[in-house]
């Protein structure tokens, strides 16, 4: 006997959507390694998706560092552990907060942007026009964007981490007269290669997920301008959910390696 419709329908839709995204991802891998390669469009997308997101990621990272330090400082002082502040902030930002918050910001800006752009191209027949001109629109539009997000998100995260630590230093410098050199010596004294490597590797997956979901939603957009709005919106929602799942998996995998 089938479960009630209100349970059956969403569960079925979930698996249908998951299957469609997987099929879309497989098509990406199939097309990505085939010539002709769209290098010019890839670099243009790196500029548009990476460089143009820099101010937003920079401001967010800076405030993240300021707030984390301001809120943690009183508690650490209470326990007499003020000296641990740089290393605590460093580990928190590099291992978890920097990658996740930056990726979420990028899912909002880049994911929705890709969803809306490709969705609008789809409903105004621009993708069909590309197809009939003898160009493979999947390779030109989708492969280049997914590759650009996969390579740009890690760079943005590294930059956001650095800006967040700089923000944290400003608070420490203002309240505790700590020098730049001492602060960063303290940060890196407790940051291992094993902290940085998994945190950086997972950002490649974050970037891939943001590009994949944005392109999947935009490329499959239907039903006019309302469909474009839905594509942009669902690109952000689904990408954000996938980011948390990926983060959880990454932490589990990293944990296994720490224990070895």
């Amino acid at each position, binding site marked *: 006997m089938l479960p009630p419709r209100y349970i059956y329908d969403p569960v079925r839709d979930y698996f249908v959507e998951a299957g469609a995204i997987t099929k879309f991802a497989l098509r990406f891998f199939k097309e990505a390694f085939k010539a002709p390669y769209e290098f010019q469009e890839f670099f243009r997308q790196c500029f548009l998706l990476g460089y143009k997101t820099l101010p937003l990621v920079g401001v967010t990272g800076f405030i993240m560092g300021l707030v984390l330090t301001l809120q943690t400082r009183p508690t650490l002082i209470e326990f007499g552990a003020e000296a641990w502040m740089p290393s605590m902030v460093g580990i928190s930002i590099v291992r978890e907060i920097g990658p996740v918050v930056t990726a979420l910001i990028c899912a909002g800006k880049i994911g929705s942007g890709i969803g809306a*752009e490709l969705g*609008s*191209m789809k409903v*105004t*027949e*621009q993708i*069909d*026009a*590309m*197809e*009939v*001109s*003898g*160009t*493979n629109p999947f390779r030109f539009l989708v492969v280049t964007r997914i590759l650009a997000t996969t390579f740009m998100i890690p760079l943005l995260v590294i930059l956001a981490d650095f800006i967040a630590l700089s923000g944290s230093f400003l608070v420490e410098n203002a309240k505790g007269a700590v020098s730049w050199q001492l602060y960063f010596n303290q940060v890196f004294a407790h940051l291992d290669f094993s902290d940085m490597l998994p945190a950086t590797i997972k950002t490649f997956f974050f970037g891939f997920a943001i590009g994949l979901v944005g392109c999947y939603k935009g490329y499959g957009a239907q039903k006019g301008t309302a469909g474009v709005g839905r594509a942009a919106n669902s690109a952000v929602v689904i990408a954000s959910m996938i980011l948390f799942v990926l983060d959880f998996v990454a932490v589990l995998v990293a944990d296994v390696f720490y224990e070895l």
Partner: protein
Amino acid sequence: MPDKYSSVQSDGSILTSSEPVILVKDLYKSFGDNHVLNGFQMELYAGENLVIIGKSGSGKSVLIKCMVGLLEPDAGKLIILGKDITSLGREELDHLRTEIGFLFQGSALYDSMTVRENLEFPLRRHDNKIADASSETNLLIERALDDVGLKHTIDLMPNELSGGMKRRVALARTLILNPKVILYDEPTSGLDPITAKEIIELILEIQQQRKTASIIITHDMDCARVISNRMVILIDGINYVEGSYAELSKSTDPKVQAFFK
């Protein structure tokens, strides 16, 4: 019918006017329970302007989208320039598409690119069609825009153009690869009568100067009267009736007459 002549294909084969450039046989296409094409048949000959009319949703756009491989027919034969489009691989299909121009109803200009880049896009991708030199590319782009009277818009973005200008730029983009067949999807819809007349004149000029064969989907009976060498009325997914504008306008069949009232 226009004067008889032969056209030489890129692979060296020669099509004569007795051999159709497009042959559609028993074409079927359904979307779920909606049976849009139910055994449609037609031929298009070199140098001919064939107008297809039919009610909205009768499958006219579906038909021409099947012809360029944007939609896959459920059954039937679709021979374009001597090749069965349903059996072509991706590469062969892309090559064949360079011989077919398609003017979309909404123009479909790439709105993130300037007019120049819109025209350059198909050229850059098919360098066998042009020399590599950028000066030659520029010359081709300028000439194509000049043909549609819009050379001054070369550095504008599509959102800076009016509806009629967009349609003409889209036409220039369609023509830039020198297609042998052009498919027009409602070329005058949404345009004022004067601009529509300009587009009709352009389509006629293209036919006369380039000797292209064209299929024109339209609801505009004035357009059909001026442009068509032959007309097909699509009803219930089949080619209900064929003939010249003069012949069909005299038909006593109420279904045919409904289009001419």
